[in-house]
């Protein structure tokens, strides 16, 4: 079944998924907001960068700058998760643990994520950003 799309106040895209028919679902478009009826194939099925979707000429497209911003958010989250066990060792000075080794590990993590940051900044497609983040998992 087709979808109804319209631009949100924040510049993103809302996608209406009708149940019975598109005609019945037209009432669900906010009053006065321009909309388009598109084929379901015009909507990306990969929602990795869902909040970076924008209205394109014929279909929903990705805003690369928004993808990069989302990519950096994910990168920071991933880095914080990797830092966490070493942060604990350094901050709490837990007896029997090697604070120097923890600091070295933190340095390696910092270096790895600096490279990912460069890949994100230099990416020309959302796929490049996703690949860099997923390769790190």
């Amino acid at each position: 079944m087709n979808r109804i799309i319209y631009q949100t106040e924040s510049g993103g895209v809302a996608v209406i998924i009708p149940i019975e028919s598109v005609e019945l679902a037209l009432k669900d478009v906010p009053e006065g907001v321009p909309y388009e009826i598109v084929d379901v194939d015009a909507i990306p099925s990969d929602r990795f960068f869902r909040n970076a979707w924008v209205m394109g000429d014929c279909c929903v497209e990705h805003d690369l700058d928004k993808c990069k911003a989302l990519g950096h958010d994910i990168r920071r989250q991933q880095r914080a998760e990797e830092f966490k066990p070493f942060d604990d060792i350094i901050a709490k000075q837990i007896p029997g643990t090697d604070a120097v080794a923890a600091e070295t590990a933190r340095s390696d993590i910092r270096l790895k994520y600096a490279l990912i940051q460069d890949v994100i900044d230099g990416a020309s497609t959302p796929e490049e950003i996703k690949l860099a983040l997923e390769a790190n998992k």
Partner: protein
Amino acid sequence: MSLRLNGSTSGYVEIDAPATAGSNTLILPDGNGTSGQALQTNGSGALSWGPGVANDAQLCKAWVNFDGTGTVAIRASYNVSSITDNGTGDYTVNFTTALSDVNYAVTGSAALSSATNTSARILSPRGTTALATGSCRIHTDNDLGAVNDCALVSVAILR
């Protein structure tokens, strides 16, 4: 064959058997029941007074079960005209027939993957302004409060 009871002034009430009647005996209950009750059968012809139709406030006014991942898809629903996908883990349930007011209850559940029940997520209305008579905006979060798309999202509206 039918049984006709004539009104004392005019008209009548008639009880008919179906054209192909079989051999059935229906036994009426021995009391009048209470207000709102309905006749029910035990399957063997003995009739009694039962609960009848539920009070309107006891009924679910709308519900939907959908997949919020990949190409968002609705599996089944009642009194829902559509779902609006607003963003990651952010959906609006649009009602076919609007509710009488916004003082309804929203309940539901969300699971990250439909293949396992170990990835439960939190489903809640998106703020106090999320409830409108024609729709309800919900979001699905992980335990850290970050929005997540979920494969199994169920929402029910009670009023």
